[in-house]
């Protein structure tokens, strides 16, 4: 039995025993509320932690869940269990309704849209007391008056199990506790499976580099919607539990402040973990109690001030120049203590304290409590953290990388670009360029900076939609298709400025490229069906063989952002190969590499061609271009000025004039 399973069993045993030790109904209720909030924050973490988007609308989704339960009970007499099904579904539908249009935008725009959504929902709950003459003036939400519900008694255990011989109100509370924590554990299990799956990797990939995700066939838009809707369902589920736990809901509960509290909980606890959001929820739920007792608050503020002073002094001893960095937080903590002494009541300043906490977390705890703990532990015992977080690469790392048999006959035309025109305002970045790339060759694309090479790459991979012309891949026109569609047809690429998924490990980067091999969907992942397992197994073996092909097998479990630059470029090529491409576009793969790295790169590119994959290579290192290209096309001012065998292009006077400056000609 591993340590992890043991810990899990102990944890569950503690959770089961808990209600028999906590006799106070007040604290019982508090614990249930923590469990419910945890479900929301865990779901919010899928959006906020994994896809990196800020949602300020989760209180509304939570409210929709609560009101679904409330309206079902009050208007239709439908009880607890069915509402646990309806609430997440309705909240997910609202989430979808919001996500479909809203997730075209990101960052501050999305934050504002979700905030607007939250405000609209709150207004609607307040106002929908009269649905108008057509609906018989139906009072849907009871408006500001709110809705009352009754907590159910699930099974009357009194008289059967002696442990449960307790007053009926307490029995209801205890039973409800078991239901709520049971659902929380289920939520943790599902989210664990989800984020460890190809779907979870897609979330992280699109956060780290949306463009690379799209070009790996992982549609950024689709997976953002999936993440948001999943998150909405969890919020809705929690909302239904909340309605029955409180036995009363009113619109004011589900406002802007609550959304901020959820965000604070996730950030403070620690993103991208299960423990973090739960811890954050616990703090956020317990906080009002803390603030209600001014003396307790003074003690805690005093403790914080002491800790800040000591740690500030310690870091000054280590590094004297850090005065400014240390001074601000220390002064702030002291000010907090002074404030706690001077105030007679703290409840009026509750919101300001939340605000200060958010600022503090944003600046000094960006990875949350769990993140900070992990960091602290990893400096002492690195192996603890590593093995807990990452799954080992399984399967035959020694397997030879086998490319799929290419459907194109070597020497026939694979890619036929006809009169490609790309216009930005008055500028013609591509001015009616023809390009004929034969299958099984390495086709060089050179030209001065700004001549249109990268524009061509972006047109070929759907990042730009050409203003005119056709891009035919084995006869099918790609112009106007989106990046993921083009990737699915077998066009892979690397990027001039490396676009890896920094927070994913090497093998996970390649697994994102293998996304197309997964057949299991969301629910199969959640249920861990044999298909889902088989997909993951197969993909991991394939990924391991690709990593050894590019010579990175021993680094499989390193995070990509920790790689040296040269290896990052190789990893990008590996990830592109995972797409099983017919055509591989390499955009300045040798830029910034040292001479030995370049040698390794040249060999790998040759091997790729030998596996039957056609390559288009943009490169400034002329020796690389001349030594491995079968054909070279030269662009200048968006126009093709020469094309042919490397030697003939090199001797072309127009090319020398525009680009080579005579350098290469002399070298021959």
């Amino acid at each position, binding site marked *: 039995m591993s340590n992890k399973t043991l810990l899990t069993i102990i944890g569950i045993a503690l959770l089961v025993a808990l209600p028999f030790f906590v006799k106070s109904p007040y604290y019982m209720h508090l614990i249930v509320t923590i469990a419910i909030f945890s479900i929301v924050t865990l779901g919010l973490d899928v959006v906020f932690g994994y896809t990196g988007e800020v949602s300020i609308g989760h209180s509304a989704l939570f409210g929709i869940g609560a009101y679904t339960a409330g309206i079902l009970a009050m208007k239709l007499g439908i009880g607890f269990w069915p509402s646990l099904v309806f609430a997440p579904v309705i909240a997910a539908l609202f989430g979808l309704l919001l996500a479909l249009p809203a997730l075209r935008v990101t960052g501050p725009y999305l934050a504002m849209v979700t905030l607007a959504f939250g405000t609209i929902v709150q207004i609607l709950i307040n106002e929908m007391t009269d649905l108008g003459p057509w609906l018989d003036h139906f009072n849907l939400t009871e408006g500001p008056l709110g809705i009352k519900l009754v907590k159910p008694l699930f099974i009357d255990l009194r008289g059967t199990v002696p442990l449960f011989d307790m007053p009926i109100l307490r029995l209801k509370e205890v039973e409800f506790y078991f239901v709520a924590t049971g659902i929380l554990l289920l939520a943790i299990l599902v989210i664990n499976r989800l984020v460890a799956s190809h779907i979870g990797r897609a979330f992280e990939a699109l956060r780290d580099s949306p463009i690379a995700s799209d070009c790996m066939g992982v549609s950024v838009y689709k997976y953002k919607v999936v993440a948001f809707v999943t998150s909405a369902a969890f919020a809705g589920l929690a909302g239904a539990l909340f309605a029955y736990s409180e036995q009363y809901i009113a619109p004011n509960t589900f406002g802007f402040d609550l959304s901020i509290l959820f965000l604070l909980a996730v950030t403070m606890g620690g993103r991208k973990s299960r423990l973090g959001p739960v811890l954050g929820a616990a703090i956020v739920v317990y906080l009002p109690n803390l603030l209600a007792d001014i003396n307790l608050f003074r003690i805690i503020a005093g403790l914080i001030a002491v800790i800040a002073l000591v740690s500030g002094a310690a870091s000054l001893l280590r590094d004297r120049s850090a005065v400014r960095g240390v001074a601000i937080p220390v002064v702030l903590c002291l000010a907090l203590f002074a404030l706690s002494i001077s105030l007679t009541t703290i409840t009026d300043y509750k919101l300001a304290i939340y605000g200060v906490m958010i600022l503090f977390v944003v600046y000094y705890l960006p990875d949350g409590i769990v993140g900070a703990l992990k960091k602290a532990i990893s400096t002492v015992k690195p192996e603890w953290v590593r093995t807990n977080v990452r799954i080992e690469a399984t399967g035959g790392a020694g397997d030879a990388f086998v490319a799929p048999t290419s459907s194109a006959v070597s020497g026939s035309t694979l890619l036929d670009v006809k009169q490609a025109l790309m216009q930005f305002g008055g500028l013609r970045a591509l001015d009616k360029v023809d390009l004929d790339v034969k299958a099984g060759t390495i086709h060089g694309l050179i030209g001065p900076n700004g001549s249109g090479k990268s524009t061509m790459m972006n047109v070929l991979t759907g990042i730009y939609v050409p203003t005119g012309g056709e891009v035919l891949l084995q006869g099918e026109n790609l112009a106007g298709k989106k990046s993921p569609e083009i990737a699915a047809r077998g066009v892979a690429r690397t990027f001039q400025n490396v676009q890896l998924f920094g927070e994913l490990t090497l093998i996970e980067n390649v697994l994102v490229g293998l996304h197309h091999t997964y057949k299991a969907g969301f629910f199969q992942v959640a249920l861990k069906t044999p298909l889902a397992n088989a997909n993951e197994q197969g993909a991991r073996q394939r990924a391991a063989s690709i990593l050894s092909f590019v010579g990175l097998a021993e680094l499989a479990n390193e995070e990509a952002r920790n790689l040296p630059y040269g290896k990052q470029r190789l990893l990008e090529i590996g990830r592109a190969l995972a797409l099983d491409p017919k055509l591989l576009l390499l955009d300045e793969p040798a830029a910034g590499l040292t001479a030995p790295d370049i040698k390794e790169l040249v060999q790998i590119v040759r091997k790729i061609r030998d596996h039957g994959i056609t390559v288009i290579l943009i490169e400034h290192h002329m020796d690389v271009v001349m030594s491995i290209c079968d054909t070279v096309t030269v662009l200048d001012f968006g126009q093709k000025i020469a094309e042919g065998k490397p030697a003939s292009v090199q001797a072309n006077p127009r090319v020398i004039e525009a680009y080579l*400056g005579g350098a290469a*000609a*002399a070298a021959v």
Partner: protein
Amino acid sequence: MLKIENLFAGYGKVQVLHGVSMEVPTGMLVTLIGSNGAGKTTTLRALSGMIKPESGSITLGGVEIGGLPSHAIARKGLAHSPEARRIFPTQSVFDNLLLGAFPRLTGARPKGDVQGDISKMFEIFPRLAERRAQLAGTLSGGEQQMLAMARALMLQPEVLLLDEPSMGLSPKLVEEVFVVIARLKSEKVTMLLVEQFAAAALEVADFGYVMENGRLTASGTAASLKVDPAVRAAYLGSAH
């Protein structure tokens, strides 16, 4: 005037410059040549504070400027006409020139005769005079290059850094740009010129450095570099 010692710089993890030392004496035109990706632009960016050098020393007129933010370096008299020109597209040609003199207009550098200098720029670059009220974003590539150079000159700089003034220009325009550079040289403007057209750059320069993979591999008077067999083989084809 400008002295660089053992400069290391790069972007994040990618180290581009590996210990570069060079000098630009007062009144001289020094050129830095090398192939694409050798680190020429990175050198200029480190000099003007667009990226922070990792180590090494940069002095301008004996004053250390390494590691200062770019606006502070500009106020000390280092002008940089950047790669890809970077003119202010929504402002008029005239306003672009005024902004070039920003430290002079705000008291950070001696004011002198700003209006007179603008007239002088219009005299050196007659095409800018015709377009003085036009928005800079509507200029042609060649005109934008002229504007970028004129804007940098408006600082009345101690040293002028020129990054690939020929980039993306037609041969005829490249020629025009080099005529202007020659004129500035005759007026004793201290310049560091980065160029991909090595032959043209060495033709006009007093002194040259050759850069490869972030290190200087050769240096000497422009005349001596022009006849250096290694430099000829790598950068000066028989075509020129």
